[in-house]
């Protein structure tokens, strides 16, 4: 690859995507093969930011992978989670991470959180309308300009919607969503939000075969992430283990039923 120089008319500016298209770096998906997919990731707003919890399983006809990372830091203050085709999703995260950094270096200023959210829309639209390998991401971050946590969800055509409470993506959504609907309050603290989000993933894993729950045999637990004024923080697997162990113990004691309460 030579030096990518452009004259003033054809210069792609600070957008990595436009540059990548001009330079032919983006590959157009053309396979319709079934590939590993499925997920449940939830994001919940609390009074000092956003928590995200996501399962770790990739599923095709059988379990393809047990320790996939479906939540990644898109940059210091933003997390991006994926559901749908694993191949396209991981590529999607890579492209988003690179795009945000590219913009920052080119123009010496970071994109606003809303700017990042809007940037993803055409990416999703293009991917989903041109391929059967559908990807649906979830963007959450700490808005440094407005000093609050924000969640953006997308529909299959790339529509971007901000959520004030919580958002869920992936095949286990109905179960996770129900749990969050019953447990969410606008004044949740960090710990409460983490516990609620974990319970939602537990319920999803319990009912959806494509969502992986806590794996006490292999010591693999769902990813837990917080986005606050300190930026993206991933909690260690020990913390995740304790959280899920508590839920699991309660559920064992009650004989497998929630018993009409969030437990």
């Amino acid at each position, binding site marked *: 690859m030579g030096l990518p120089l452009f004259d003033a008319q054809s210069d792609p500016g600070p957008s990595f995507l436009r540059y990548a298209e001009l330079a032919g770096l983006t590959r157009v998906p053309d396979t319709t093969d079934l590939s590993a997919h499925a997920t449940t990731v939830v994001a919940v707003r609390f009074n000092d930011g956003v928590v995200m919890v996501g399962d770790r399983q990739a599923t095709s006809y059988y379990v393809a992978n047990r320790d996939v990372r479906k939540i990644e830091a898109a940059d210091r203050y933003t997390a991006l989670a994926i559901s749908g085709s694993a191949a396209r999703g991981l590529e999607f995260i890579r*492209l988003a991470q690179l795009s945000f950094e590219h913009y920052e270096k080119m123009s010496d200023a970071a994109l606003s959180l809303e700017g990042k959210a809007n940037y993803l829309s055409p990416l999703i639209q293009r991917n989903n309308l041109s391929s059967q390998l559908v990807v649906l991401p979830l963007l959450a971050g700490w808005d440094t300009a407005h000093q609050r946590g924000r969640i953006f969800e997308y529909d299959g055509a790339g529509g971007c919607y901000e959520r004030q409470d919580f958002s869920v993506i992936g095949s286990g959504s109905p179960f996770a969503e129900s749990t969050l609907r019953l447990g969410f309050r606008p004044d949740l603290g960090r710990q409460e939000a983490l516990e609620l989000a974990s319970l939602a993933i537990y319920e999803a894993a319990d009912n959806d075969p494509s969502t992986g729950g806590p794996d006490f045999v292999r010591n693999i637990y769902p990813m837990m992430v917080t986005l606050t004024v300190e930026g993206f923080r991933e909690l260690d697997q020990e913390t995740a283990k304790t959280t899920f162990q508590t839920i699991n113990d309660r559920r064992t004691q009650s004989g497998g039923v929630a018993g009409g309460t969030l437990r």
Partner: protein
Amino acid sequence: MSNFFYVAPEQLIKDRAEFAQKGIARGRSIVAAIYDVGVVLVAENPSASLYKISEIYDRLAFAGVGRYNEFDRLREAGIRWADGTGYTYSREDVDGRALANYYAQHLGDMFTEGQKPLEVEILVAQLGNQFRPTKLYRIAYEGTISDEEHFAVLGGDAETIKERFATLEVGHLALSQTLKNAVSALAGPDRQIPVSDLEVGVLEDRGDRRTFARLDDDEIGRLLA
């Protein structure tokens, strides 16, 4: 009826070189130096928003003197090249030497074949790791490339500043001492450069993937104190 004038190639090269040197000499200089644990780039730059030093990649930085629009396009091309290479292959495969070579080819082409040579002198700084050395690649307007193990000076007044800096900077020192030496070499014996007129960027490992940092006036003041 048209007239053809013969111009000897020696004369053509000489004229072009003079033209480029004149353009470069108009601007202020930049000192780049390798200190004990990183690389520091110091520019005298009264503008707080039009930068001469910037981040290219995880372990690469760029500095340019001369015509702003010309070196800024090279800076952008460098970022695109680095991000494009890292995206296509791996982040590890982005190499400062390769980028410096592309710059050298482009500047060389512009010098011999362009409408006019680019009036710039640029530098690619690489912070080393287990795979690559810490190096300063200096590329002149006509495409000459040199790799420096210790320090490099860009700009019209380079020779004088280089001598001043060489007498001060003995071995790889700590950041604050190297910065002091660079600023005093840039200023010379007869004047002081106010902190607000300094632009400083460093490449240093702080545990993050990205190693570039721009120092603000407070930090520069503290290091110079």
